[in-house]
């Protein structure tokens, strides 16, 4: 049947179970579609893709300045920067580390700028398991509100060369 030319009157609207299933599948597809705009307006976790064009070197400079101005300590030789609540924070991904270590406060909202100095990187916050793409030339802004405290690890989860798996960073939340 499937490999022969069908009879001439092959055009039929679906009937019976087949029609029932197509209807149910279509309704399910529409529910799934509506969920995304619904969550965009009512959910607390969204990836809006807010971003600005930036030269990689310019972003490196901004991050260094941010780390210097907001330094509150050191973590294994890397400065810890604590941005003001509601303020801007910068995080630089580069081969193969994250800079600086960020110190945030639970319940406060920050505009976290993430970009790369060289290749593409992946911002993967563990153990929360929140993941965002980090692109050179794109200042990716996450408006972020930590809702739990502790020491969180940033893993790079976009392949970035031989030392990819060594690219680890930290976010501390009080």
């Amino acid at each position, binding site marked *: *049947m*499937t*490999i*022969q030319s069908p009879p*001439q009157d*092959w055009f*039929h609207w*679906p*009937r*019976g*179970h*087949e*029609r*029932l299933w*197509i209807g*149910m*599948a*279509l309704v*399910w*597809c*529409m529910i*799934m*579609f509506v969920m*995304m705009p619904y*969550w*965009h307006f009512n959910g*607390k*976790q*969204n*990836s809006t*893709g807010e971003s600005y064009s930036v030269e990689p070197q310019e972003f490196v400079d901004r991050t260094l300045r941010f780390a210097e101005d907001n330094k509150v300590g050191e973590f294994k030789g890397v400065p810890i920067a604590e941005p003001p609540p509601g303020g801007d924070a910068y995080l630089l991904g580069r081969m193969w580390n994250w800079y600086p270590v960020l110190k945030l406060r639970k319940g406060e*909202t920050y505009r976290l700028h993430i970009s790369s100095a060289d*290749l*593409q990187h*992946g911002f*993967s916050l*563990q*153990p*929360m*398991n*929140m*993941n*965002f793409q980090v*692109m050179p*030339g*794109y200042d*990716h802004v*996450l408006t*972020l*509100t930590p*809702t739990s405290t502790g020491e969180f*690890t940033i*893993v790079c*989860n*976009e*392949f970035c*060369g*031989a030392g*990819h*798996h060594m690219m680890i960073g930290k976010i501390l939340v009080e």
Partner: protein
Amino acid sequence: MATISTEMSGPNTRECKTTGLPVCLDAQFFIRANAVMAVVFLLLGGIAAVSIALTRWPAVHLLDAEWFYRLLTFHGINMLIFWILFMEIGILYFACTSLLKTPLFSRSVAWGSFGLMVLGSVMTDYIILSGEADVMMTSYLPLLAHPLFYLGIILFAVGALIGVFNFFATVFVAWKGKRYGETMPLVAFGALTAAIIAVVALLHGAIALVPTFTFAMGWTAEPDAMWYRLIWWGLGHQSQQVNVAAMVSVWYLLSYWTCGAKVINETVSRGAFVLYILFINIASAHHLLVDPGVGASWKIWNTSYAMYLAVLASLIHGFTIPAGMEVGMRIKGYTKGLFNWLWNAPWRNPGFSAFFLSLVIFGFIGGITGVTLGTQQINITAHNTLRIPGHFHATVVGGTSLAFMGLTYYVVPLLFQREYSFRWLARIQPYVFAGGIVMMSLGMSFAGSDGVARRTWDIDAAGVYGATSHLMLAVLGIGGVLAFTGLMIYVLLTVYAVFLGKSNEGSAMEDWGTPRDIVHVGDVDPEKIGKDGNAPGTMVLVMVLLLSFVVYYFANWKALADLWFVR
């Protein structure tokens, strides 16, 4: 199997003694050539696969970092591009000649296609293994490989495009001469769908890779990294939809050959293929859901394939294929109860078991995870974690590759005219392979839910992954070994059959086992079965699918709601 009169005849044609289909000897030669190359690359990709799986299994951790990334690149390219596309060109040649009763348009075009594909694939593999292209299959800029890496892929893609052109030209000749009757058979229609999507996919590949090649040569400026991602996934994701369309066509073919499946409604099945063509070209968005540079409404519209209309197409095939099989079996007399048709299916026929396992794995694991992870916001919990390979090993390997393996158990006897030996091994092969892939896929998915990244050598970055992750990575490793065992059985049996198998020239192939007609009991009228669109057993099965889908989908929203707030 039904016999069809052949209008195609002449010295360059034979009639298949098993199916009654005409076989164009030119097409047969190139189907053989493409199938042989496909199996060679499957073997190479498989050896890389088991090495990678054994590296991510913490207790083994086989490769060093350099070779892990190298073989990961090698594995992706050989499996996703070379093995599958060589097979698909073979399938296209079969569909446009035997099914449309038309000789292959051109031998020299087929030679050109085949030559370029071989040249390109050997070039790319050589460059990867020589350590000049440790860039992963995606080769995201600004990461840069040796220029010949891109040139190899471009040559391969051009070769594949030329093969697709040969297919279109043959279809045109067939259509002009009405050689197949008024309406194209469904399987050929599905192959045509795959070919159309392949053209769009390969053009995206050219647009992304040609400027990258010229940049690597130092001739032009560097393309934008975001632009590259957008266009590259026009190749990367759409080529998976080529696989879906080709795989669904193979499902229709194998369900007919092994169980005498009917098409419940040609309009519905064809309409679903058309939905693929119309809405697949925006699939690139699935890979950019947590990217900068593209906004929320763009992500929502595109990732849903314009309100999930291409997903609808797969849900429709998920009904029509088992339903067609159910109707075919009920007509044969297996009418008792809801599932008598299913229990009496030819489970020892590897063509059938590969088809049916492929259908189940693709639908229940690949499909449900794919749509859920491809939901804009849920992708935050999945992007670049092992959940992603957990999904696509269920679609591309458990789905497409397994279906193609099932097809091979017919291709070798019918087109190489050689019989398989060690048939008991062939009968268990789909189960071994499917079992391994399911374990591997679930291990990846659960480890990924725990946050474990994909494409990373160190399985325990800074000690953030807990005991559950380690257990799941072990499941991945063991599943990988099992799947590799299934793959090796397939490769060895097939190579043995092709070179040393008993010839069946001049007679029908040895039947793998097909259900025989039995006497109808009760007041069933076989003429009426399926005409009303009903398939009660299948209706129950798809309801189970839908229920699993709903539960998994909303469980993921719940998990997302527990995360930090982010906009």
